[in-house]
Every structure is written in structure tokens, then in C-alpha cells.
């Protein structure tokens, strides 16, 4: 049976919410931006007026002011946006329990089963659109289609406050002329590579030979072809389910550029504290530690290392991160941002090989000490107990990486490749149907 899938996208989400709470700013260009003092000085979102003036997401605040002199900047209020996201999900849940958020402001809904009661996809989309406007005061654009990919393209097709339906009858005229770069998973590099072969639009991608795409792009070639032909089978996940955690990481742009090993050690320790606390909270131990480094010329790299033993001990993760950093960075430039990530996660109760030359009793005690620190922080706040290294530079160490960063980016395939393009299998099933149509 053909599915009915909606993709709802709140139009310039942060800026719309800020405008709702600051009606006096309506009619003036507005951007939501970070704190230039703490050097998070980029535009996170902008309203329609600022957009028209050429302000782009990711611009530095001073660039935005250059592009649009009359612009007003407001600080982001993440808690408020999360509240709106929750209220939006409450509205969606009147129509289906198959709703899968994609970031804070986008969501897929599979309403196949409620169409008999609530009307067809277009009717439900129109109802959601008007309810969002009335009940939350923000506009959404919604795409209606039979697969997630085209639904998402539909929500991008016409903005703001609009519904676009992409059917099997009209997708060739709506979707196919769009540039290939609009498709999920076609980033700058892929787009360039496609252009080299004369593939500029989604239609040209859809009609390209599958074997050729697979030769050039590997497995992803088949996936892209499936996407472009509207054959994506990926289901919309049930609400409130999370993909299994594969890794836990934190990164931060530091309040000032880091210039020496000690600066870096402070930040890496801080990040390791957050990562290890989250490991303990979720009952994991990690076997791989990864650091990511970005210098002030915005050159960046990541390095990772396998640990001797699975661990959730702050000290061990911090030491691994610091030594990895020292070995891989020669201080060509001051550093602007650092990250620590723990991956290859295991359950800490899984039996593991002890080491004759390693004092496991001491490791157990360290683990207990970390647990005590966690519970002290839970009761008396993050800053109630700190490591000595933090006192070298209070300006750097005032960061609370664990509680300040709570929004996670999502990948389309974080629950695995469910597109229906499983390499060879796609040739038989997916493309046979493509050929028939």
C-alpha cells in the first residue's frame, strides 16, 4: 500500500519564535545569534527580511551587520525553542504516533493509517499548518508525498506557510528539475563530482545508470539513485524512540584561543569530564577515544585511539585525549575549538581481560570516586567540585560542557540503511520496479 508521509518544517524557527515574543521587533530585520563575547558570534537563524538582505546562517555577526545595517541581534534561548518543539510534537501526535524529529524544527509524520478518519495527506497537512499558526503563532511548510525524501523536498519547495504535494503524477515536473544538491546526502563534494559527469538535476541523477553510480560513489550511489527515483523505503520511526547510542562526544569553541599544552589540557579535561559523566549516566564504557581540533585558521582534523581497556573513568579518558592531542598537534596555529568523543561503547559489566601490570583495584576506586563526583554535582551543582587543573585559568574553565549542550544532530541513517538500496539487492527489487514504471 502506498504510504502518506508528511515532512513539517518550522520556517526560520528560532527567528519566528523570537518575533512572537518580541512583537515590537516585527517589521525589522532580525537574526538570532550567539554571544560575540564568548566568541559564539555567528548567525543561527534569521527572519525573512534579513534573509532578503543577504544574511546567511553561519555568517559572523559583523558580516551580517555589513550585509544588513539595520539588523537586530537577539541571544538564542534554547529552552524556549525546545518548548516549542515539544508543543509542535503534541499537535503532530493528534494525527499519528509515527513521528520522527529531524533536528529541533523538522519532523516526519507517517499518517497512512489515520487518512481514513482525518482525510487525505493534503487535508491533514493544511489542518496542521493552520493549527500551528493559531496555536503556536509560527508558520510551517509541509511536504506531502509517499516517501520521506520527497516529503522533505516538498517542505523546502515553497516557504513559508505552505503545503506542497508531490505525487507519482507530478514528481517528474516538481522534483526532477531541482538541483541535485537539494537531495539529502548530496553535499558539496558529491555535487561537484556529479557535475563532472554532467549530472546537475535530481532528474538526471534518477535517470543515470545505477551501475555507473555505484562504481563512482560505492554503496551511496545506489542510495542516491533510490532517493532520486522516490523509491526510498525508510520507515518513519515511532515517536519517543531513540536510535541506539553509538558514541558520546562534546566539543566547544573556547572563550579565547588556546596557545599552549596547558590550555588544551584544561579544555580536554573539561570535555572528558562531561563525556565520561554521560557514559556513566547511560551505563557505558568506551574502547576508543577521539579528539577533534580546529585552529584559528579553521583548519581541522580528528584523531582517534583504541584504549587498552574499556573505561568510563574521567582520568583515563582525559589522559588519552591529552596524549593523543600532544602527539598529533604541533601548535602551527592557536586553537579555536576542541572536541572529545568516546566510541566503540560496551556495557561496563561485560567481562574483559584483566592486565597483570594494571592495578584493577585502583581503577575500581577511581570509578567510585567519579561516581561520587557525579552525585555531588547532581546535588550541589556543577561548580561545587572541580579538578585542580581548572584553577590555572578560571576564564577557560568556567564552561559546563555537559549541561550547556543538549541538542544533538541527527543522521538520516542513524538507525541503519533502511532505504531499500542494499547494494546488490537494490538492483533486483528497487530497480526492477523503476524500470517497470
Amino acid at each position, binding site marked *: 500500500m502506498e504510504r502518506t508521509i508528511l515532512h513539517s518544517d518550522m520556517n526560520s524557527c528560532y527567528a519566528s519564535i523570537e518575533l*512572537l*515574543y*518580541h*512583537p*515590537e521587533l516585527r517589521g525589522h530585520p532580525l537574526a538570532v545569534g550567539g554571544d560575540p563575547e564568548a566568541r559564539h558570534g555567528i548567525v543561527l537563524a534569521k527572519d525573512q527580511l534579513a534573509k532578503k538582505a543577504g544574511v546567511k546562517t553561519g555568517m559572523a555577526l559583523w558580516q551580517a551587520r555589513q550585509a544588513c545595517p539595520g539588523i537586530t541581534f537577539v541571544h538564542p534561548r534554547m529552552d524556549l525553542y525546545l*518548548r*516549542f518543539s515539544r*508543543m509542535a510534537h503534541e499537535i503532530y501526535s493528534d494525527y499519528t504516533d509515527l513521528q520522527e524529529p529531524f533536528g529541533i524544527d523538522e519532523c516526519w509524520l507517517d499518517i497512512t493509517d489515520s487518512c481514513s478518519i482525518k482525510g487525505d495527506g493534503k487535508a491533514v497537512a493544511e489542518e496542521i499548518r493552520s493549527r500551528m*499558526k*493559531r*496555536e*503556536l*503563532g*509560527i508558520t510551517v511548510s509541509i511536504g506531502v508525498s509517499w516517501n520521506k525524501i520527497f516529503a522533505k523536498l516538498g517542505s523546502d519547495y515553497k516557504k513559508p506557510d505552505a503545503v506542497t504535494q508531490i505525487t507519482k503524477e507530478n514528481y517528474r515536473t516538481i522534483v526532477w528539475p531541482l538541483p541535485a544538491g537539494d537531495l539529502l546526502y548530496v553535499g558539496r563534494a558529491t555535487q561537484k563530482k556529479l557535475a563532472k559527469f554532467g549530472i546537475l538535476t535530481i532528474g538526471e541523477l534518477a535517470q543515470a545508470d545505477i551501475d555507473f553510480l555505484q562504481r563512482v560513489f560505492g554503496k551511496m550511489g545506489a542510495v542516491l539513485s533510490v532517493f532520486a527515483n522516490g523509491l526510498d523505503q525508510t520507515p518513519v520511526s515511532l515517536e519517543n524512540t531513540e536510535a541506539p547510542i553509538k558514541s558520546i562526544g562534546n566539543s566547544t569553541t573556547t572563550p579565547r584561543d588556546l596557545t599552549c599544552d596547558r590550555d588544551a589540557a584544561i579544555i580536554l579535561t573539561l570535555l572528558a569530564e562531561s563525556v565520561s559523566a554521560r557514559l556513566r549516566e547511560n551505563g557505558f564504557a568506551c574502547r576508543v577515544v577521539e579528539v577533534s581540533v580546529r585552529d584559528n585558521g579553521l583548519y581541522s582534523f580528528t584523531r582517534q585511539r583504541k584504549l587498552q581497556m574499556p573505561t568510563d573513568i574521567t582520568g583515563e579518558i582525559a589522559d588519552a585525549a591529552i596524549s593523543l592531542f600532544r602527539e598529533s598537534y604541533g601548535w602551527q596555529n592557536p586553537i579555536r575549538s576542541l572536541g572529545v568523543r568516546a566510541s566503540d561503547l560496551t556495557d561496563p559489566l561485560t567481562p574483559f581481560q584483566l592486565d597483570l601490570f594494571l592495578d584493577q583495584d585502583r581503577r575500581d576506586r577511581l570509578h567510585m570516586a567519579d561516581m561520587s563526583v557525579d552525585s555531588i554535582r547532581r546535588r550541589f551543582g556543577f561548580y561545587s567540585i572541580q579538578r585542580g587543573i581548572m584553577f590555572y585559568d578560571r576564564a577557560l574553565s568556567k564552561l559546563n560542557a555537559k549541561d550547556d549542550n543538549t541538542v544533538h544532530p541527527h543522521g538520516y541513517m542513524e538507525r541503519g540503511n533502511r532505504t531499500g538500496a542494499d547494494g546488490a539487492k537494490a538492483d533486483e527489487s528497487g530497480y526492477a520496479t523503476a524500470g517497470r514504471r
Partner: protein
Amino acid sequence: MEYKIYVRVAAEFTADGKMTPLWITWKDGRKYVIDRVRSCERAASRKAGGVGLRYTCMISGSEHYLFYEENYRWFVEAKME
């Protein structure tokens, strides 16, 4: 131009948890009795700026909106004087 003004509200809670506002006390102490609540729905106030439960109230013969915001405070859309 209208703006948002937080007000003092007396409300009644029924045994099954339903909340109904009874009267508003204005900043100068004047009391406005709500004669009837016509409807209660979630709505945004684009004029005053905010989101919450919107009670459409009859106060001495005319209709007014009273919002119960997510921050547990009540506000009305007031006219700029």
C-alpha cells in the same frame, strides 16, 4: 499597538483538575469579575507575544482574551495608553 501585561488572577480548580479564572485584579487594585468563560484553547498571542491557554472571557458585557502562559503566569493583551 498592544502589549503584554501580567495580571493577578483568582482561579477555581475543580475536583477533576479543571481550571477556571474567576476574577482579574488590575495593577491599580480594581477587580474585574469574569462573568463567563466562552472557550479555552491553546493559542498564540501575536499582538502581545506569547503562547498558552487562551481563555475567552466575558467581562461586563465585552469579550476579552486571558492567557495562561507556559511560565504559569496570566497575561492580557493591553492597549498602549
